[in-house]
C-alpha cells in the first residue's frame, strides 16, 4: 500500500471538507478499499474515515415509516437493529460475506462500490430506496449506472439510505462459495403500487430490474406467473463461475423461489 494522510472527522461537514482535498477518498469499512489499495489499484493521497461520525451510524424509522440506515452502519448492526422493522433487509445484511466482514463493511461502502455481485444494491433497487448524500436525495432507480458505476459525484458521500417497507418481500441469494458474494441474487418486493424485482450478480451492467417479471407478478403474484418468461440472456455475465445461459436460468429460479417465500 502506498503511503497516505489519514483523516478521522467527527461530523459529516468535517468529512465533506476533508474530501474536497486533492485525491482524497472516503473509507467505509475498508473491506473492499483496503485490499484494492494493497494491490495498488487505488492510491489516494488522503483517506477520510467515515467510521467515527455518530450521525452516520445506526438504524431508525422515520415518520413516513421508512427504515433509515446511516451510511456508515456496518452490516452486522443492520442485521441486528433492522430485524424488527424490515426483517428481509436484516436477513440480507446478515448473510453478506462472513461475521468479521459484517462487523466492518458498511451499507454506504457497498452502495458506493456497486459491485455487480453485491447484495445491498439489490435491496436498494428492489425496495425503491432513497440514497441520501451530503448534497441531495437520489432515487435508487437513478442511482445505479452500471458495473461499479453510480450517480455519486467526486467527494459526495452517502449519509443515509431510506427503505420503504414492502407488504411482501424476499431475497434469494445463490452463493458463489469461494467469494461468498452472490453468483445470482434476486430481491422481490410487493408494494401497494406494484411489484419490484431487482437482480444482482447476473448482468454485466450490474444490478437491474427485471421488468417483464414485475409486469407478470403485478397481474398474478405467484411463482407460476413467471414460468413462461425468460430473462434477457445476451447481457448476462459469463465467467469461470458460470455461463450467461446458466446465470439467466438462475435468475428465473431464484425469482421463483423469492416469490414463493415472500
Amino acid at each position, binding site marked *: *500500500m*502506498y*503511503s*497516505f*494522510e*489519514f483523516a*478521522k472527522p467527527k461530523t459529516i461537514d468535517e468529512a465533506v471538507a476533508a474530501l474536497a482535498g486533492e485525491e482524497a477518498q472516503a*473509507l467505509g469499512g*475498508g*473491506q473492499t478499499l*483496503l*485490499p484494492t*489499495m*494493497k494491490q495498488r489499484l487505488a492510491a489516494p493521497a488522503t*483517506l477520510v*474515515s467515515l*467510521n*467515527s461520525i455518530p450521525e452516520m451510524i445506526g438504524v431508525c424509522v422515520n415518520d413516513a415509516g421508512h427504515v433509515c440506515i446511516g451510511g456508515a452502519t456496518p452490516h*452486522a448492526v443492520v442485521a441486528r437493529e433492522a430485524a424488527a422493522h424490515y426483517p428481509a433487509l436484516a436477513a440480507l445484511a446478515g448473510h453478506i*460475506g*462472513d*461475521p*468479521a*466482514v459484517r*462487523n*466492518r463493511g458498511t451499507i454506504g461502502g457497498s452502495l458506493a462500490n456497486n459491485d455487480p455481485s453485491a447484495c445491498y444494491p439489490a435491496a436498494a433497487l428492489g425496495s425503491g430506496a432513497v440514497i441520501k448524500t451530503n448534497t441531495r436525495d437520489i432515487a435508487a432507480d437513478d442511482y445505479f449506472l452500471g458495473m461499479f458505476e453510480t450517480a455519486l459525484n467526486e467527494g459526495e458521500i452517502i449519509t443515509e439510505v431510506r427503505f420503504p417497507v414492502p407488504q411482501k418481500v424476499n431475497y434469494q441469494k445463490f452463493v458463489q462459495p469461494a467469494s*461468498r458474494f452472490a453468483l445470482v441474487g434476486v430481491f422481490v418486493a410487493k408494494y401497494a403500487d406494484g411489484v419490484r424485482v431487482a437482480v444482482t450478480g447476473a448482468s454485466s451492467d450490474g444490478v437491474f430490474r427485471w421488468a417483464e417479471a414485475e409486469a407478470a407478478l403485478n397481474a398474478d403474484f405467484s411463482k407460476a406467473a413467471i414460468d413462461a418468461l425468460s430473462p434477457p440472456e445476451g447481457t448476462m455475465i459469463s465467467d469461470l463461475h458460470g455461463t450467461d445461459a446458466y446465470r439467466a436460468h438462475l435468475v428465473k429460479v431464484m425469482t421463483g423461489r423469492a416469490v414463493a417465500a415472500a
Partner: protein
Amino acid sequence: MTQVTMTVNGKAVTRDVEGRTLLAEFLREGLRLTGTHVGCDTSQCGACVVHVNGNAIKSCTALAADLDGASVTTIEGMANPDGSLSVIQQAFQDHHGLQCGFCTPGMVMSAAALLKENPKPTETEVRAYLEGNICRCTGYHNIVKAILAASGQDVGAIAAE
C-alpha cells in the same frame, strides 16, 4: 504519523503509526504480539481475526489509526489469568481441533465471538459462523466439535470423520 492509543488485552498502549499501518502490523510488529497470524492478507482466510470492542474483525483489513481508542483482544489475551488455557483453547486441544496451528488463533477468536452471541449453537450454526475462517489441515470437523464441546454440549455422539 498519527498517535494511536488502544487497550490491548487489558493494557493501555500508545504508539505512533503511519496511516497505512494495518491493525495486524500494529499488533505483530509494533507490539510483538505474533499470535495473530496473517495468512492471506486479502480478507479471505480469517487467520488474523481479533476482537475490537467485542466484535470479531479481520485485522489485516483494518487500519490501526482508524481504531484509536478501541479495546482489542488477541489470542494472547484469551488464556485464563493464571496462564492456563481457556475453555475454548482447552477444547481445541482435547478434541484435536488443530494440526499445524496456523489458522488456530483466528478460529479461537471467531469461536469466542460466536459463543458470546450464541452460547449453545447447533453444528450448522458453528459451521456457518466459521465461513470466513479457512483451515487447510483439519477438515474442520474437529474444530466444530471442539467449539460445540466448549459450549458445554455433549459431543460424544459426533463421530470422527
